[in-house]
């Protein structure tokens, strides 16, 4: 892998933010700028979650195992756009009205789902360091399966907020469904190939 590859991908991940900023400075956010920013950051959060989830299938199916080195960065960008999305809601939409926000979280199911999706990303971002991976060992992998639930909650958040046209949220749902399906199939194949597999790794750890 070329050594410039990673910085290039990093900068590419910042393009959606740059685009928002550019539009903001050039009156390009339409008649309802706050809504535009909300939708844009929300879209990119979901997109980055799905891209992160596609790394494993992609590297296994294409045997391009180096792809793994991008997974953490992409996951953290999902978190980054999630923070922007949440900040837009807290600051620009609700203008720090805590009472109203708590009311929203309790009463509006699409907000509840969105908050859940975000909350589930927090432990993942916090344990994304090499130190955490080493420290948590096998439990790290189990913990990071939370991303499935975060992405699912994110898609449900989108489905629950649209009025009538479900096309876009269902596109996300379809992609997520495919990515999760891959894991179920991979797991089933794996299990059939070596039924004792669940026991074995534990023994290995014990031996180590």
């Amino acid at each position, binding site marked *: 892998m070329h050594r410039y590859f990673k910085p290039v991908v990093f900068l590419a991940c910042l393009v959606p933010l740059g685009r928002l900023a550019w539009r*903001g400075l050039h009156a390009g956010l339409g*008649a309802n700028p706050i809504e535009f920013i909300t939708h844009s950051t929300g879209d990119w959060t979901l997109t980055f979650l799905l891209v992160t989830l596609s790394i494993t299938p992609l590297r296994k199916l294409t045997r391009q195992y180096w792809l793994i080195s991008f997974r953490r960065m992409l996951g953290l960008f999902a978190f980054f756009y999630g923070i922007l999305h949440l900040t837009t809601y807290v600051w620009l939409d609700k203008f720090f009205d805590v009472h109203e926000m708590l009311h929203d979280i309790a009463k509006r199911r699409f907000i509840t789902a969105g908050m859940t999706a975000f909350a589930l990303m927090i432990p993942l971002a916090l344990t994304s360091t090499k130190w955490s991976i080493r420290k948590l060992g096998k439990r790290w992998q189990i913990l990071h399966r939370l991303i499935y639930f975060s992405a699912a909650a994110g898609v449900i958040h989108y489905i*629950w907020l649209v009025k009538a046209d479900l096309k876009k949220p269902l596109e996300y749902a379809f992609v997520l469904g495919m990515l999760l399906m891959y894991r179920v199939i991979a797991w089933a194949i794996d299990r059939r190939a070596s039924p004792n597999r669940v026991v074995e790794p534990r023994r290995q750890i014990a031996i180590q």
Partner: protein
Amino acid sequence: MLIKKAEDIRSSEITPKSLYLNRRKFLAEAAMAGAAAAIGVGLKETISPSTSVLAGNKIDGVKKSSLSTTETVTPYNDVTHYNNYYEFGTEKDEPAEMAKNFRTRPWKVKIEGQVEKKQELDIDTILKMAPPEERIYRHRCVEGWSIVVPWVGFSLSELIKRVNPTSKARYVEFTSLFDLTRMPGQRRQVLDWPYVEGLRMDEAMNPLALLCFGMYGEELPNQDGAPLRIVLPWKYGFKSSKAIVRIRFVEKQPLNSWNISAPMEYGFYANVNPNVDHPRWSQAKERRLGEFLKRPTLMFNGYGDQVASLYNGMDLKKNY
């Protein structure tokens, strides 16, 4: 009349404009120049400026109306490039583009149901029924945003009076155009086409209910419901049918499209009401396009003096 005018000028210059200027500073968004530039896509705008549909044709002899608000009018470009009109796409900026070549002539409106004489009226006959008035109304979308629009039209009652409904007519139903070739959004079943809406007779006869064919002193742009629509400022925007081809007088309460689509969320009455939330979001506040902070939503969108009596004794939580 003169006194009224003086009042108008004064109050419109006090608060709203300074609010407006503040948020402009905040978002660094030249919204006034937005009348020329805020097409929604900055880049697109620089490459091909003014792809916008300019209705262009000025309407002559428009009278001012005492029913107008003195609030700051929303810029033309915002009103024409941010609206819901699912017949031309479900995104807010789609109608402007997709309705660009929509033909509004020839256009006939069928008058049917409980009337003395069923007939088909030509649009140009309807437009001459009464002198055009400018009505500057607040317009509140069920989604939580609002605009102030200088509509042009006359009271719907002017048309109703002329077509003589019978005593059996208790409701009036509005049907919008159904044409898959001219309204590409109808190729997708996001709603049950054609779009239908309805009013109780006394609501329809209320002077505020506007039969509308223009805005900003010009003919209605295609994306805003040309050639003929209604405007009901005390109700959520979806009640205000666009591109009307049939007006039917009926005995029973008609169905309305959004109610068919999601009965728990959109009722028949759909009066603007800050105390009755949409099941999925609050209706207590709204974002006026062009303003940064949300403002409180007013009961009946601030038209309670004119319309509250229509709903005396009704439970507005049930009749949402």
